[in-house]
């Protein structure tokens, strides 16, 4: 994706104070279920439909002065997803990648966290309540209106206290007989920042698809 470069975590952590850090997490769990009684679901992978009508991962901006990246990420997950997020903790071992953009200066850190299906389902059940609480409470009163959301890396309007998750969705990992329905069609949705690339990389590296099927996926990849 134009304007973004991958960097090592150590390099990212040494970027100056002019840089903002954002952390997001792909939560997933093995799922023994079968679609239509015959297509293995394999894993449940969570994404969310955001307030801006785009799909993304839960998480948000973190301030390194308040603690580690993981401290900030777990706090964001708690705010966005509610108390079910308290049942697990995303750690440094779950870290996957960092990508930096130049305008605005945001570096996005991506994590993947393996949960049990019970933990993941508990997150899904609690999410509507967490969302509506966020809607009622609203952001802290800020006399300066937030600037329009920059395209690219940032997955959150700056200066806003919380993100209003409109709904959690599961990513279909299978492909239907027509070769399009399922994951290929899902990838045609609108994603925020580099969430689509983060998803594809995780799906491949974590072995979430049926072995060998990633290569067969007829999807367009960005140049």
């Amino acid at each position, binding site marked *: 994706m134009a304007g973004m470069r991958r960097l090592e975590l150590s390099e990212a952590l040494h970027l100056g104070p002019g840089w903002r850090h954002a952390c997001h997490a792909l939560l997933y769990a093995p799922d023994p*279920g*079968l*679609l*239509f*009684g015959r297509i293995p*679901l394999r894993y449940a992978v969570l994404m*969310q*439909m*955001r*307030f*801006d*009508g*785009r*799909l993304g991962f839960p998480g948000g901006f973190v301030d390194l002065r308040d603690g580690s990246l993981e401290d900030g990420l777990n706090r964001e997950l708690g705010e966005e997803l509610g108390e079910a997020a308290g049942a697990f903790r995303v750690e440094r071992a779950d870290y996957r990648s960092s990508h930096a953009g130049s305008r605005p200066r945001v570096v996005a850190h991506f994590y993947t966290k393996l949960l049990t299906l019970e933990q993941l*389902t508990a997150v*899904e*059940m609690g999410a*509507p*309540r967490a*969302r*509506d609480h966020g*809607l*009622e409470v*609203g*952001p802290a*009163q800020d006399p300066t*209106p*937030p600037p*329009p*959301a920059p395209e690219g890396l940032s997955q959150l*309007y700056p200066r*806003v206290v919380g993100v*209003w998750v*409109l*709904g*959690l*969705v*599961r990513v*279909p990992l299978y492909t*239907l*007989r*027509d070769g*399009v*329905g*399922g*994951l*290929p*069609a*899902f*990838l*045609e*949705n*609108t994603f925020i920042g580099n969430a689509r690339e983060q998803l594809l990389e995780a799906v491949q590296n974590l072995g979430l698809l049926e072995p060998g099927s990633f290569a067969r996926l007829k999807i*367009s*990849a*960005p*140049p």
Partner: protein
Amino acid sequence: MGRCPAAGAGAKMSAAAVPELKRISRVEAMRLGPGWSHSCHAMLYAANPGQLFGRIPMRFSVLMQMRFDGLLGFPGGFVDRRFWSLEDGLNRVLGLGLGCLRLTEADYLSSHLTEGPHRVVAHLYARQLTLEQLHAVEISAVHSRDHGLEVGPPPGPRAPPPAPGFGSGPAEGTDGYWDLSVSLCTPRRTESGFPNFLSNAFISTAKYQLLFALKVLNMMPEEKLAEALAAATEKQKKALEKLLPSSS
């Protein structure tokens, strides 16, 4: 909230009109022969007094689903008219996902002929709930999803040919398992999420139905709908250009 008389096929189209599928009356739809498949879907919505960032009014929350095939749509599915009335079929399908909400003929909104070579007529129902009721439906949907997955759809006596976009779905049974609630913002400013939302991957019938329902239920003026749709189409075009290999 009253419903304005539907525009229907005879309405004049303004320059910035929203494209529509061919609409037919319920009577005409019931007269269609056995070669036609019937699908029933429900738009459940609630007035939402909340504000994004404390200033952008949400106006309404509309419940939609991420379907099994990775496309967005309304809750519902195919109904076999040899065994069920439209309403019974719809409630049966919704019962798999949405607890004890029951829709009636009073909630019927429209019938449209779908695009494509397969003969499918899509019936849309709409019911306004309170925000609390919508919330309860959402939560109950998560609970009942796994049951629906294990049980699977009932085997249909004769499956209609798989329609493109309907995937290799069953003759009957809910076609969505994962719910999300969409909040539509009045697009007074360009930062509204609705054009982005429209640029997602919908099962095409649902997109037409959503725009139609928002219009006839007076939830959004037609010019605004047309603007949002135009902006969404533009976004999709740009996204596609980015994904295609550069010609250098």
